């Protein structure tokens, strides 16, 4: 494959982040929703010295539950890479990932609260 096929006008460097994932492009286990909440609060007390720097950073950033999209943005890593990191970390018991609470999206009261709050912006 020619090198330029990796890149186009919109593309950033894509190879390096995949070193973090051992070249994998798909996470293992359940798919990780964009707004799933990542938490390291119940993490096994692993010695951070032994962990990849990215793992340590995820653990630090997720002491309070944090949505995947926010985490990817703050880590400045592409979403796909972050998903693989997170699924690996979940397998190792370093984090928990909770799906977003969709059952309340259809609660008219919650939505009225949203509309009221937006009006005050």
């Amino acid at each position, binding site marked *: *494959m020619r090198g330029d*096929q*990796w890149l*186009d006008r*919109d*593309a*950033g460097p*894509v190879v390096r*982040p*995949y070193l973090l994932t051992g*070249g*994998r*492009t*798909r996470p293992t286990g359940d798919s990780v*929703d*964009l*707004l799933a*909440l990542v938490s390291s609060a119940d993490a096994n007390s692993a010695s951070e010295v032994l962990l990849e720097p990215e793992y340590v950073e995820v653990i630090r950033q997720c002491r309070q*539950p944090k*949505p995947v*999209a*926010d985490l*990817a*943005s*703050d880590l*400045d*890593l*592409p*979403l*796909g*890479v972050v998903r693989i990191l997170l699924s690996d970390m979940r397998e190792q018991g370093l984090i928990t990932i*909770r799906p*977003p*609470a*969709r*059952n*309340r*999206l*259809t609660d*008219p009261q*919650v*939505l*009225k*609260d*949203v*509309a009221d*709050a*937006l*009006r005050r*912006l």
Partner: protein
Amino acid sequence: MLSAGSEQDLDTASPVSIKILIAGGFGAGKTTLVSSVSEIKPLRTEEVLSEPSVLVDALDGVEQKTTTTVAMDFGRITVRDDLVVYLFGTPGQHRFWFMWDELALGALGAVVMADTRRLADCFPSVDYFERRGLPFVVAVNCFDGARRFDPEVVRTALDLNQGVPVVMCDARQRSSSRDVLVTLVEYAIRLISDSEVMSH
């Protein structure tokens, strides 16, 4: 689908995230709207563009595939500690269609930004959300120098269902972008209460 009692309690305790998509053609004002109304953050995604015929996704095949990176508009509005609205700008180019299903999953609804100078650019977005049954509003971004249209003219041109709100906006103005989002949330509330009436 209701989960077990303990998870219900967790759900109630955890923050509610509302996801709203901002769609529309290139240059229709998606980024402008997201940045005028929310704290905008950089978000990159990337996808492996596999051949449609390739069914097996081998783990060792990275070098066989074309990977593409795309920057998305991503904004958050913290309504309350336990209530956050997320805005995701959908990538406009057709080769990123595959990302839309994921973005649309669990979304409250969408804003389709329309530029009357290039109205046809938003047809694919309108088609997509209609097919998917996701509530959407059409926001006509009133660019300087663009001819002003009656919302009904835009509705007819886009062949929209009667209920779909069409609003004029200036995406540069926070208040105007905010009103677009309010219109969408109110429309979603109407659809939810209508469907509850139907099911009872």
